[in-house]
């Protein structure tokens, strides 16, 4: 049981956080809260990849003269880290565009609350 918790607590926590982010995007009425939910979902997915890269007892992915390259067990898996650098930037830029759209909506309708917005769009 303890081993199970040690091995999977991170994954289960991230699955829960992902669902919380989705909850924010689906249920909340305020558009800004939807954007926050989007941010949570993106961050969770990034964490998910990083957790997959973890190795017990390994160090950072910069070549260490003490270990050399013959022991790959001494380094974390560098591939997911690299991929997530890309995903972080994508998430940030999506956030920027979402905020730009929110500013556009606010200038047009002077509200970010969805029921009020629907009323004013008629």
């Amino acid at each position, binding site marked *: 049981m303890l081993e199970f918790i040690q091995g999977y607590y991170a994954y289960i926590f991230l699955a829960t956080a992902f669902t919380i982010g989705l909850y924010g995007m689906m249920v909340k009425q305020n558009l800004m809260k939807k954007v926050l939910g989007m941010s949570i979902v993106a961050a969770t997915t990034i964490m998910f990849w990083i957790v997959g890269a973890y190795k017990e007892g390994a160090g950072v992915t*910069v070549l260490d003269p003490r270990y050399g390259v013959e022991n790959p067990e001494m380094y974390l898996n560098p591939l997911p880290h690299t991929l997530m650098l890309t995903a972080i930037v994508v998430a940030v830029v999506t956030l*920027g565009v979402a*905020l*730009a759209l929110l500013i556009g909506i606010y*200038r047009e309708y002077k509200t970010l609350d969805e029921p009020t917005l629907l009323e004013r769009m008629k």
Partner: protein
Amino acid sequence: MSTSNKELCSKETAMMAPTESPIIHLASRGISPVILLIGLYVFFHGHYSPGGGFQGGVLLAAAILLLRLSLGTSLSQPIMPSWITLRLSALGALIFAGIGLVSILFGGNYLDYHYLPIPWLDPAYLRYYGILLVEVGVTITVMTTLVAIYDDLLGC
């Protein structure tokens, strides 16, 4: 939408005006060059420690944005004018993609630094300098785009 935009933009909003406090002025003017220096360090040291184009670019952008925040939009124009940001951003991406095209023209596959036309270097160091050149483009694009998005969100 366009008329309301122009009205909003014609008067300086509070975010675009300089701050009143002299402490913030002095501090930001002092800190900003240091951040620029750290950004350059992070960028050039990316081969040996965590860092590289994105991180360096973000730090450089932070230095400029600090001046934008404290001095206001108009006073901070000389360090990075608003009209140049997106063009520099296109130029940075063009540097990256252009290096790929150079290696096609010299007979390799796309982005194969092995084929860069620098004959006196051996292949491993060709890739070393290829990575450095590419990161220059990344830094320029990230820095200028972050400033551009900030300017856009403020409205001018």
